[in-house]
């Protein structure tokens, strides 16, 4: 194989090598994070770089499907795809992963000797997540999904002595497995209906639809529905969201950002891949469901966030609502991919940044973060306070923060394509109206957070200075939130090309 042929799987390779290297270094040089930390950082950065190279390759030479193991009939189907979607996803995953890793740096210190394990789990999960979006094969998608999920089950329960962490881990595991099973059954049913496990390439699902007129779509529809359930669960769209608040609250704060952000990126990318690109011919069937999921998510996420007193839960529910906004973009079918990307890629940083701040406030190993912990944060630590303000404003969709452009982009997309159900030319206008209304309701709790941070602190003591990596993570997140709010067009132009083939 020539050197260039590695490029399509460079992202995964770098991460896997990185994970192994971390473990090896820890064994060889010692478990102190100073030794293996750089290796991990390098792996994340290298993964992002791989993404950049992929992106360059895609934009100059075009996208392509790749066959890996040759010789068996199985190999008639491509296993890896390198296109705008996967390359852009690689960049975003790599960067978010890197920032998320930095945000977890304090947690790594807390877990002491077990640090290398934690970090290598993170590295592995990232590789799995990218697999979900860089393959046309449904089984490989499942494989990636499970790789990431299993890693995350462990990460969530990493502080096994803490009751919250353990409970969180168990819930995540049990429900996650259930959802995976549902997804897998969906894959199986789709396979039964179409006779293919590949989305495109030779003998693919796409081919099937272009050559066959489906008269008895029952099995296929059930398969699609179950796959959608699996993905909706991963991106925590209502009503499959219930694990999210519990898991996010229980899991160690330092790692929640990483988990929450990256899984959303991959989940939505997989949605775009499977439904946007693979099942493109069925678009009129699945967009209404996506719209319903979006609507329920926005309402449930927002309304429940209103009544929370724990910030982690609040952010978790807000994540549910955000899943709704992103799904709103996807109601436009594959045309929604750019808006989805814009939203996911900026929101991911906000999530990482938000949880990173929480970890500096309540401790990276904390499980509960009551709102009162944030009281007077601006006074106690102006840096963290203001940055968190930017992040929260970004989440709330205030103009001049990335969340605003993301929402507008998403809403514009949803109205730009005619909708099949209810059939009209203005797309899912009702969903957009609901979306803006829910954005307003959401302001109630976002502004509550901000108000709390700016109020007078009970505890006058200055906040203990967070570690440099964590601070860096927060700064990067906030800067991205602000920068893409004021100067969104480079990203808008970029996501135009982040399409699946």
């Amino acid at each position, binding site marked *: 194989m020539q050197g260039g042929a590695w490029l399509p799987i460079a992202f995964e390779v770098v991460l896997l090598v990185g994970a192994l290297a971390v473990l090896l270094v820890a064994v060889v040089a010692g478990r102190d994070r100073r030794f293996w930390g750089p290796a991990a950082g390098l792996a994340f950065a290298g993964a992002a770089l791989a993404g950049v190279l992929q992106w360059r390759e895609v934009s100059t030479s075009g996208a392509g499907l790749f066959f890996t193991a040759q010789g*068996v*009939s*199985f190999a008639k*189907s491509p296993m890896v795809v390198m296109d705008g979607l996967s390359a852009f996803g690689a960049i975003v995953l790599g960067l978010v992963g890197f920032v998320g890793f930095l945000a977890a740096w304090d947690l790594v210190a807390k877990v002491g000797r077990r640090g290398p394990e934690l970090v290598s789990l993170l590295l592995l999960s990232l590789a799995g997540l990218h697999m979900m979006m860089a393959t046309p094969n449904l*089984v490989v998608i*499942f*494989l990636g999904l*499970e790789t990431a999920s*299993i890693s995350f*089950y*462990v990460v969530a*329960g990493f502080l*096994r002595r803490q*009751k*919250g962490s*353990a*409970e*969180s*881990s*168990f*819930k995540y*595991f*049990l429900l996650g*497995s*259930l959802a*995976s*099973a549902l997804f*897998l*059954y969906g*894959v*199986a*049913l789709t*396979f*039964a209906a179409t*006779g*293919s*496990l590949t989305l495109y390439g030779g003998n693919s699902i796409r081919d099937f639809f272009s050559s066959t007129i489906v008269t008895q779509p029952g*099995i296929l529809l059930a398969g699609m529905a179950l796959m959608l359930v699996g993905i909706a669960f991963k991106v925590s769209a209502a009503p499959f969201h219930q694990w999210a*608040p*519990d898991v996010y*609250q*229980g899991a160690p704060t330092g790692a929640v950002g990483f988990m929450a952000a990256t899984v959303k990126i991959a989940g939505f990318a997989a949605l775009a891949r499977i439904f946007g690109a693979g099942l493109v011919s069925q678009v009129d069937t699945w967009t209404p469901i996506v719209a319903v999921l979006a609507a329920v998510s926005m309402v449930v996420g927002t309304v429940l966030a209103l009544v*929370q007193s724990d910030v982690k*839960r609040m952010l978790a529910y807000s994540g549910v609502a955000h899943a709704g906004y992103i799904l709103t973009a996807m109601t436009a079918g594959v045309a929604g991919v750019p808006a989805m990307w814009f939203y996911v890629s900026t929101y991911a940083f906000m999530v990482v940044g938000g949880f990173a701040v929480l970890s500096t406030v309540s401790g990276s190993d904390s499980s509960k973060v009551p709102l009162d912990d944030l009281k007077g944060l601006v006074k106690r630590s102006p840096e963290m306070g203001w940055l968190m303000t930017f992040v929260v404003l970004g989440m709330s969709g205030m103009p001049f923060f990335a969340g605003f452009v993301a929402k507008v982009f998403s809403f514009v997309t949803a109205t730009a394509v005619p909708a099949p159900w209810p059939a009209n030319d203005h797309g899912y206008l009702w969903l957009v109206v609901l979306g803006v209304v829910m954005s307003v309701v959401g302001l109630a709790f976002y502004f509550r957070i901000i108000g709390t941070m700016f109020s007078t602190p009970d505890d006058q003591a200055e906040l203990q200075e967070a570690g440099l990596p964590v601070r860096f993570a927060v700064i990067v997140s906030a800067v991205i939130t602000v920068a893409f709010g004021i100067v969104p067009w480079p990203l808008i132009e970029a996501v135009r090309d982040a399409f699946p083939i």
Partner: protein
Amino acid sequence: MTVTVTWYLVLAAALFSMGAAGVLIRRNALIMFMSIELMLNSVNLTFVAVSKHLGLIEGQVAALFVMVIAAAEVTVGLAIIVAIFRFRSSANVDELSELRG
């Protein structure tokens, strides 16, 4: 009477449903977990049956992958369950509801 692929599919669906019902009904963490395994295996049955019916190899390969993954899941899952219930007298999942609201 020939056993067509439909039979397999129906059987798998039934198994899947039983597994799902097990998850919902049983309180014991281990049994819930086993129910999930049952669901995965019913999927495998589907894969294999369809694969055979269509004369394709993909489904069978997929089943292999699923088995591997199920194994991995078992490993981790059991570890988690053990970690939690080590200090508890029962494996009743209903007691795990500290995180809620």
